[in-house]
């Protein structure tokens, strides 16, 4: 055997162990084993009523998709969550930034903000039915409210922590009030708005789903609730799978946007200076 061939073999194994493919392989294995255990356990423990099993869930998913309900349910739920998300994050960013940046205002309103913070927002769901009826508007507003609070709190807390020295320094560099806003305050707050949005995004979906639980006649949340009342565990899990997939897609999208908008945060590696006297 030639030396080169040997080296190649070694590097193949090394790359297998260290490369990202190897990690993906492990992850895939974990997923498959989990599904198999679920399928087997469901049979062995005679627990299909409680935990269903992957094959039944898949069948249920297929039926849901073929009937055309999946598409329309998805459209409805995503619309509710999406519009709610937009309204909530814009309002949350604006209010959070204002209260965070204007120190006096923030101090003044802090006790009220805190009392709202501790309130379990989910408890407002019935009230929203009263206010906005049982149509999509109710879910939109509910999910907007949940997102609003996440974005608002994060932006508020983050923006108040702006380094006041940085501001004083910018003044010394010649910044007037307007420039402080555009060149320091807003870019700084943007970091926190993004953080808030990332935390708030899942809440958009939670809002829509909870809204549908409370009162609805369509949507993914409604299907899950309906399936539960018919003891159709497989359909419940089918709904959960759909929600999981949606969330993952949404988070992936957000990450993409974030990477472009906040490139300075994701830029990695330490650049070492060459010696240039």
């Amino acid at each position, binding site marked *: 055997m030639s030396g080169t061939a040997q080296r190649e073999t070694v590097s193949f194994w090394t790359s297998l162990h260290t490369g990202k493919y190897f990690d993906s392989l492990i992850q895939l294995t974990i997923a498959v084993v989990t599904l198999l255990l679920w399928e087997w356990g469901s049979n062995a423990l005679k627990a299909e009523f409680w935990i269903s099993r992957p094959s039944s869930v898949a069948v249920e998913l297929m039926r849901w998709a073929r009937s055309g309900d999946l598409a329309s349910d998805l459209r409805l739920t995503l619309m509710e969550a999406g519009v709610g998300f937009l309204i909530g994050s814009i309002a949350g960013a604006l209010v959070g930034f204002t209260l965070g940046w204007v120190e006096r205002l923030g101090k003044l309103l802090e006790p009220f903000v805190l009392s709202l913070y501790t309130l379990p927002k989910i408890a407002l769901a019935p009230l929203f039915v009263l206010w906005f009826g049982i149509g999509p508007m109710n879910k939109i507003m509910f999910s907007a409210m949940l997102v609003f609070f996440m974005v608002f709190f994060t932006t508020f807390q983050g923006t108040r922590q702006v380094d006041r020295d940085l501001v004083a320094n910018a003044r*010394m*560099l010649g910044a007037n009030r307007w420039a402080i806003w555009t*060149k320091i305050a807003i870019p700084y707050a943007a970091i926190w708005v993004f953080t808030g949005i990332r935390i708030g995004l899942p809440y958009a979906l939670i809002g829509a789903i909870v809204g549908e639980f409370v009162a609805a006649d369509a949507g993914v949340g409604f299907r899950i609730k309906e399936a539960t009342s018919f003891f159709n565990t497989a359909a419940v899990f089918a709904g959960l799978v759909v929600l999981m997939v949606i969330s993952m897609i949404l988070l992936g999208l957000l990450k993409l946007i974030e990477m472009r908008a906040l490139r300075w945060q994701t*830029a990695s590696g330490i*650049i070492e200076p060459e010696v240039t*006297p």
Partner: protein
Amino acid sequence: MANPDAARTAAQGSDMLIEFNEVVARFGSLHAMGPTTLSVRRGEFLAIVGPSGCGKSTLLNMVAGTLNPSSGSVLYNGKKVDGPNSDVGYITQKNYCVPWRTVEGNVRMPLELRGMARGEMDERVRFALAQVGLTGFEKAYPKQLSGGMLQRVMIARTLAYGPHVYLMDEPFGSLDAQLRMRMHAKLLDLWQQTGATFVFVTHDLQEAITLADRVVVMSRRPGRPKLIVDIDLPRGRDVVDIQADPAFGAYVKQLWHALDLH
């Protein structure tokens, strides 16, 4: 610097650019500094040394307008300082880079704030970065740079807008010894080219003597000027050779005794 005459054209009126009159700094019940009476001449390189906590930085903050004296007054160009003084460039050990701008963008910021024309901005940014040896790092983000490099970005940023006064608070504290020496040489060049006034706070006696026309020794808290020494070493100083000068050693000794750190 691009506008070597800036400081000189601004030279009007008195010979003294900065005047501290009976200035006292108190932080709550702590009497930190003063009463201090001290003047900085136009175009002078003044170094201030003293034990930690003697109020060296406080003096600079008052010139920069970020701190008001508890009593007494600070005059800049004959006028009382109140509010941030955009005539000065303040360089401390803390880095004030905004993290979302590149190196270039950070250096450009004060120029944007002054509403400078794009062409001139580019020119100045390029020049300033070259001066501190950061050419080639224009597109890097602060997060990617080491402490020493960030420090040089801060210096370049100040250089770019060419203030009349450079306030420096242990600016080279985070640099290694070699880089420090190189920066000393750069700083002396800069001072000579711009004719700007430098007020340089340090606790490194050698650094003070190498750079300054006069060295002020502050006493322990409450800090006040204890001794002011004229550094009578010829200009056009070489940062290495100067240390071999017998007079250099004598200054070190004199200042060391005045510091009285035992």
